[in-house]
């Protein structure tokens, strides 16, 4: 009888999780706790479907697609995306939008493209995944004659992916368990003045940026990152670090009192602040603001142009603000910043005063060749894992 569960355990499944997925989870939590009820949530979003859709049409270029499949990370985001992005697009173009909540894993996209049977049109991934997929040659370059580069924050218009919203890696801390409040990554590394366990992420992006600052670099000097230096810095405090894989895990570590501080997503930090009645606080200072990404797989069924038009339509600031209200992730269009309600501005990574305190994720650096022959992205993932294993 005993063998049954082994299959389950052999189940080597991904416990890494992309930020996108996490936002959805947060929205779900808020629904669950009654902070927002489903009706308001849907109503707010469907209101948007009446909002004008901008920058969609590139006349004559679209081939007549009947359906466009957008894949995200499931849960309430299926409805949220449908209302925020899907319905306006349907009304403007007559193309039916389907939201698939399966989760656009890189491995799935690659297998699909290689088999020549692509079923997804637009995928909601992250900056790291975009670079990996670009190297594998399985996603289309973004057509910036359709997608508007000026509606994008910072350098978040990559050649093969464009930002759909923003999130930050921030320093969060439990002030009840610490005598002083940590003010910088240097304090994060100071285990004698701030005793207790810390948590950092399994993947290097967002973490190395903190390591560089802990090594005394200013925000401007973070890039180009010295990967080996970061590994050294990490090893200094390794014995005091617990690794988080998913957003819910990082949150659980704080709730359980396992850690006193951590480098975690701002959305989760914000939830912790509310859940733990102010015990947990966080700062934008020294954070790393990173983009969520839209990708289009090579050979997508609705055609490349239709996918690009969908992306362009999702650049509308009002749609993005509604998504921010529900999911907590920051609007990617700089024009949205001024439209964000006053009381929510403290939680928007894109507000100028918040943005200035952080270092923007530099996709170009991650794409560059490392001396090992790999890209910085590949090399850093490899050594980061090694550093964790000790």
């Amino acid at each position, binding site marked *: *009888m*005993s*063998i*049954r*569960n*082994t299959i*389950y*355990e*052999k*189940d*080597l*499944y*991904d*416990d*890494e999780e992309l930020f996108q997925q996490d936002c959805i989870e947060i929205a779900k939590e808020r629904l669950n706790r009654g902070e927002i009820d489903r009706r308001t949530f849907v109503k707010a979003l469907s209101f948007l479907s009446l909002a004008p859709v901008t920058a969609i049409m590139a006349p004559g270029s679209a081939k007549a697609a009947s359906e466009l499949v957008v894949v995200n990370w499931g849960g309430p985001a299926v409805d949220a995306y449908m209302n925020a992005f899907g319905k306006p697009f349907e009304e403007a173009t007559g193309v039916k939008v389907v939201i698939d909540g399966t989760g656009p*894993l*890189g*491995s799935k996209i*690659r297998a699909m493209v290689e088999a020549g049977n692509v079923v997804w049109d637009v995928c909601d991934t992250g900056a*790291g995944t975009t670079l*990996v*997929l670009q*190297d*594998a040659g399985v996603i289309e370059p973004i057509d910036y004659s359709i997608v508007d580069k000026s509606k994008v924050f910072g350098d978040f218009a990559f050649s093969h992916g464009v930002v759909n919203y923003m999130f930050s890696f921030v320093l969060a801390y439990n002030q009840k368990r610490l005598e002083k409040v940590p003010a910088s990554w240097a304090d994060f590394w100071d285990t004698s003045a701030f005793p207790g366990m810390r948590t950092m992420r*399994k*993947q290097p992006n967002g973490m190395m940026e903190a390591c560089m600052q802990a090594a005394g670099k200013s925000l401007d000097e973070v890039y180009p990152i010295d990967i080996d230096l970061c590994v050294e810095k990490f090893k200094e405090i390794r014995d005091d*670090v*617990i*690794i*988080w*894989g998913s957003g819910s895990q990082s949150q659980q570590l704080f709730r*359980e*009192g*396992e850690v006193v501080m951590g480098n975690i997503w701002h959305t989760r930090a914000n939830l912790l602040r509310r859940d733990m009645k102010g015990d947990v606080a966080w700062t934008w200072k020294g954070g790393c603001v990173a983009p969520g990404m839209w990708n289009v797989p090579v050979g997508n069924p609705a055609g490349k142009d239709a996918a690009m038009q969908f992306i362009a339509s999702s650049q509308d600031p009002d749609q993005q603000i509604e998504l921010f209200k529900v999911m907590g992730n920051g609007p990617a269009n700089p024009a949205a910043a001024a439209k964000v309600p006053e009381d929510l501005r403290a939680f928007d990574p894109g507000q100028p005063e918040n943005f200035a305190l952080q270092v923007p994720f530099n996709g170009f650096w991650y794409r560059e060749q490392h001396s090992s022959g790999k890209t910085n992205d*590949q090399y850093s*993932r*490899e050594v980061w*894992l*090694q550093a*964790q*294993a*000790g």
Partner: protein
Amino acid sequence: MIGRSLNHGSYWVLIAPAVVLMVVFYVFPLLQVLWISVTEPTFGFGNYEELFTNSFLHRIWRTTAFICGITTALTVVLGYVVAYAMAHVREQQMTAMMFCILLTFWLSVLIRAFAWVMLLRTEGMINNALMFIGAIDDPLRLSRNQFGVIVGMVHFMLPLAILPIYANLRGISQSYVAAARGLGGSGFQAFRMIYLPLSKPGIIAATILVFVFSLGFFITPAILGGGRVVMVSEYIRVAFEETLLWGKATMLSSTLLFGVFLLLAIVSRFVNLRRVFGAT
């Protein structure tokens, strides 16, 4: 024995559907994917070279062998004790014991791992209980390290060890032991000289099953190891999912598969594997 070959022909027909299904829908896709290990990034055995040159890989294999070895040893010893007790108690108590084992099957590995986190963490139930009775002053670090991983893995594997050992022990006649005792041996001597050797097949079966299964463990180390314990299966996942280095991932998978086959081949020289895989 009459018409043996004729009979066999019709019996091969019984085997055929399952074999054909397995070859077409399992082995073929598997080979298709493992083939990648020699074609990506370039054709040849470049990926396999890394097995010898990459010291990080050596470390991962060592960690894997270490964790799986300890888990297997602990599981088999603990499993033997339970199986021995089960084989020597009355029906009613045996049923109660079997209940405990069967019930744990319904806890998915994810839920079990989280339950262990709740028990083992710094402010978890075990630490709290120990501090309450005054056994310790400061909480112990029981999870998010190798200890936690091993506890979780042993817990998962125990039924896997208990059942084959129990099946084997039940088949050992008590009269052997009684005879040994009658000839003047002490209880323990009788156990060591007669009973233990007779239960060897069960022990070997349990050891192989537990070891092979623990090689593929991933979720428990990920949750209870706090990121500190990186085993081969985790590395395969990273290469598959995150970095899309499929050449490397499939190379490690083939190596793992080949290692298991090699292990089974070596063991089969000493024991009858038919018995190990169910035909006891």
